[in-house]
């Protein structure tokens, strides 16, 4: 709070960067966690909330006739252009936001103050929702070849790995320890994924400290153990995600890549995904394209091309497709590249910030475009996660590794995101999902035309650009209506014996009355009334529906309750 000198500024304009509509005029508030703008000019009260942690940059622009402009860029690609009447107010807001958006101490992060009024037990349950052991179990681990080891319980092997990970049974403690000294930051090869169909494994690790000629016997034994964990396969792939040139340059710094001569039966492959600096500047260029004022089609396409963003997305996807193919073809992979979430929560080196996670999320989205029925979640789920990676509202994405998260006492002091998302499962699900048995491996097309610009992400807050009617909402509505109707139907069927039975006087009951209905007689009109809203809520969601949006959440909410009631019953 000490950062806020002016908590409220009146007569602030908010410019819309596309529509030439009249700028909104209203009041700007600064709270400990959010910047809140209340539009006073709109007929309906309209609020814009910006989480301080989401702010990636604040700029003061040159004075205009309207006042002092303040341009705010957010990590979720929201861009807000305010114009403030007084220079002093503008400067106060500016300096406050600079401090609030990049706290120095981790304890200042939102997650440590966020209080959703949840019981301690539930909070703890939330952290246990995702159990890595269960995940391994799903892959059939432990088995004859792989085991879960707690060798890292004191973070002696690697400070950035979790206390437990999966290694080949054949790898002794000495091999693991020895290998860790030969790997950058001790990130030894560990299992990431086992393809149960054929026991092919995907492992990951950091680059070896090979320099020009260094060797490490234990590391060689480690890779051998991984290869031999699948006796059916004569060799394994070692895939380096960097461009070869970058890997070679790293040799001079005593790092580099595995020498094929020193490792038995490995095949080396470079995939050529550019480093974080290239990615960061590519995203920057893309966002500049997205922000252009009334660009021509050609401006946009040229900008899209020059940003290189889709080229990088394609490279990442190609890598994924290659790995999947190799896995299916029963081969072995170990991957070497440092991978940490670089999101820049705290005031630190801006050069270390990278959009790797954004790219991952986008690749999933691109897959969803090609396979609309194969994912249980919708685009909204991806955006939600992407938001929270940067929001610092939940503990999941804080710190760089398990060790740091323990030191920050994140599991005790903050909440986990997953139960919150789970609670909203109904609105985040993909109504077209056909279950995981419907498809096996996806075989995405990675020809350039298969990749689309993701307007929903990079121009997400420019609503005018998006389809004006939302198919997702409509289908979710259908789905929940179906559930309600099925409830009604089964309820009515349950009542049939009653109607035929000795007490016909009870009449028809409202569908929501549940079990109690049998005892409480209600006049038949109630039933008809109860049915009307459901029927009128049919597919007639026209253009106007969006204006009457309050009606919809209510319907969804109601049906959700029904469903829950059904589950409990």
């Amino acid at each position: 709070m000490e950062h806020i000198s002016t908590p409220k500024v009146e007569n602030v304009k908010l410019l819309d960067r596309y529509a030439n509509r009249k700028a909104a005029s209203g009041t700007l508030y600064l709270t400990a966690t959010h910047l809140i703008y209340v539009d006073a000019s709109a007929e309906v009260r309209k609020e814009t909330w910006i989480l301080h942690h989401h702010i990636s940059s604040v700029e003061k622009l040159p004075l205009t006739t309207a006042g002092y402009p303040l341009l705010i860029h957010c990590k979720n690609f929201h861009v807000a252009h305010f114009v403030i009447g007084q220079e002093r107010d503008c400067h106060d807001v500016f300096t406050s936001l600079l401090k609030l958006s990049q706290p120095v101490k981790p304890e200042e992060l939102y997650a440590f103050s966020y209080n959703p009024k949840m019981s301690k037990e539930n909070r703890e349950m939330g952290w246990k929702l995702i159990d890595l052991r269960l995940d391994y179990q799903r892959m059939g681990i432990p088995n004859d070849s792989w085991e879960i080891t707690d060798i890292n319980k004191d973070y002696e092997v690697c400070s950035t790995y979790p206390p437990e990970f999966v290694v080949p049974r054949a790898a002794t403690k000495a091999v693991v320890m020895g290998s860790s000294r030969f790997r950058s930051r001790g990130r030894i090869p560990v299992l990431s994924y086992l393809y149960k169909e054929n026991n092919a494994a995907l492992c990951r690790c950091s680059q070896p400290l090979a320099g020009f000629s260094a060797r490490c016997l234990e590391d060689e034994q480690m890779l051998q153990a991984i290869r031999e964990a699948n006796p059916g396969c004569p060799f394994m792939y070692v895939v380096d995600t960097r461009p070869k040139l970058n890997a070679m340059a790293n040799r001079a710094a005593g790092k580099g890549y595995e020498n094929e001569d020193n490792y038995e039966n490995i095949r080396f492959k470079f995939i050529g995904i550019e480093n974080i600096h290239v990615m960061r500047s590519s995203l920057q260029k893309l966002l500049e394209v997205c922000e252009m004022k009334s660009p021509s089609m050609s401006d946009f396409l040229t900008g899209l091309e020059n940003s290189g963003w889709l080229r990088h997305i394609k490279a990442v996807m190609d890598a994924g497709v290659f790995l999947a193919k190799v896995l299916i073809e029963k081969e072995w992979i170990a991957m070497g590249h440092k991978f940490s979430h670089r999101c820049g929560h705290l005031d630190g080196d801006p050069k270390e910030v990278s959009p790797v996670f954004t790219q991952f999320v986008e690749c999933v989205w691109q897959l969803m475009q090609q396979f609309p029925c194969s994912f249980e979640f919708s685009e909204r789920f991806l955006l939600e996660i992407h938001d929270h990676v940067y929001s610092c509202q939940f503990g999941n994405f804080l710190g760089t590794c398990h060790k740091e998260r323990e030191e920050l006492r994140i599991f005790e002091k903050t909440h986990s995101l997953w139960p919150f998302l789970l609670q909203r499962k109904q609105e985040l699900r993909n109504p077209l999902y056909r279950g995981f048995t419907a498809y096996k491996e996806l075989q995405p097309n990675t020809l350039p035309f298969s990749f689309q610009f993701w307007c929903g992400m990079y121009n997400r807050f420019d609503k005018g650009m998006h389809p004006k009617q939302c198919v997702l909402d409509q289908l979710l509505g259908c789905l929940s209506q179906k559930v309600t109707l099925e409830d009604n139907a089964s309820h009515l069927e349950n009542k049939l014996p009653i109607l035929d039975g000795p007490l016909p006087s009870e009449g028809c009951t409202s569908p929501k009355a549940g079990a109690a209905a049998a005892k409480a007689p209600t006049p038949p009109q109630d039933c008809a009334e109860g049915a009307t809203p459901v029927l009128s809520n049919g597919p007639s969601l026209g253009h106007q529906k969006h204006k009457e949006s309050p009606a919809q959440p209510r319907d969804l909410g109601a049906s959700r309750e029904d469903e829950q009631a059904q589950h409990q019953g």
Partner: protein
Amino acid sequence: MSPLLCPSSSSLPSGGHCPPLLLLRVQNLGWYQPPRTGGSPRDTRVSGSSGTITLRCKDLRVLQLEIPGMEQCLNIAGSIEALSSVDSVMMMYPFFHRPPGLRLEQGWHRFPPERFFQRLSSQTSQWRLSTVNRDFSACPSYPEAVIVPAAVGDDTVTKAARFRQGGRFPVLSYFHPKNGTALLRSSQPLTGHNRRRCPEDEKILGTILDEGERGFIIDTRSAQAAKQARMSGGGTEPKSAYPQWRRIHRALERGRPLQESFTRLVEACSDPSLSMDRWLARLDGSRWLSHVKAALSTACLAAQCLDREDCKVLVHGAEGTDTTLLVTALAQLILDPSCRSLQGFQGLLEREWIQAGHPFQLRCARSASSHGRGKQEAPIFLLFLDCVWQLSRQFPFSLEFGEELLLTLFDNAYASAYGTFLCNNEKERSLCKVKESTHSLWAWLEQPEEKHKYLNPLYSHNPLVIWPSVEPQSIQLWQGLFLRWIRPSQHLDEAWSEIQRLVEGNNNSSKESTRKRLSQTPPDPAAGTGNGR
């Protein structure tokens, strides 16, 4: 194979249904496809004992046939060559195609100008249906009945027609019932370099506007191009002669440049060796999406003048048969909810494209593989369909039809078993007896099992104006058309039928549930009251 290629073969499938797909296509190519093979329809390579024929179809599919036996191959190639260049309209497939269950006259008189006028006359009395063009004498590319201002007599119209290129005098295209404004279209005035005037033409445009009222002329050429047209006898309406009309220029590409744009895009789409950067560069270089954006923007401008500025609008370019129709048809789709139903959309096509005299035969002859051969070739109609697709993407509940219909229309405009898109105007259709001797596409589409395929399960009537976004981020490549034969579509088709299942299942179950409830409700009160007594 050869016998199947013979036009007189009796084994020709009716209704375009034949199980072996490859066979069917070759057959169609040879038979009714003067259409379906493009400008450079085939490229025959003969090596050893077998030959390869590459067929570039008008629906953008490319087929390669490996044919054993050199002589066989050359025979087939020769037949295809001959059959794909039938010149006479009356030798074309629609004149022979007789689908079972349909009568010849069916569908031809579903959208007469009279019916359109009937609706109009219930809303206003300022317009009348004129038969001045009864024998196509005033304007050979207009239908026999057109709508003109009620205050203007046929003789004035006849004289005004002489002042407009091709006789295309200003006629009503759409009446906006909300505020009584109207959309008109015409061709360019024949002003010429000596700035000729025509009192009758000035009178037509003058009587439309009340005193002090302003109208807009949207010229689909650049100001410079319009000026240059004076050298060849054309031109624009000068301010001095039409004081109440304000002219706006919005240059829309047509003719050769548009055709080249189409060709370049199709080439880029079929080149799998492109890197991401090259692909984006060629997508941009084709300029197709720029044309889509420009067409939608201009249509929005016209719609805005009508709906927001309460002004009457006249649209024309040069001939008034291409970009003019593109703009007037799109503007109506944006403004008028009745054009967005399946039936209404067919009516719009009939009125604003077919009867309005878009020269389909000249424009849609060779499709993407026309390399400069057909000087008149231009995918204006395809550009329109693409714009409609963009609207359907931005307003997924507002059009009663889906992508499938747009694809079918594209196919049929270029190569059809039906007579609907034959010839260049009503006069030619009348001379060739198209309506008497061929089947109408609309009749075919009207059959329940066909119709079902084209309906949008998410449709719900939307009475509002649908203003699309024309930002580049909102405009997408129409993959369903341009990558139709290139990208795998199985998963997308599944998604579409899943949507269908979900929505229709929902409607049915809601009906089901109502039925159940209704069938159960009656005994209740009866039983209740019975017991009470």
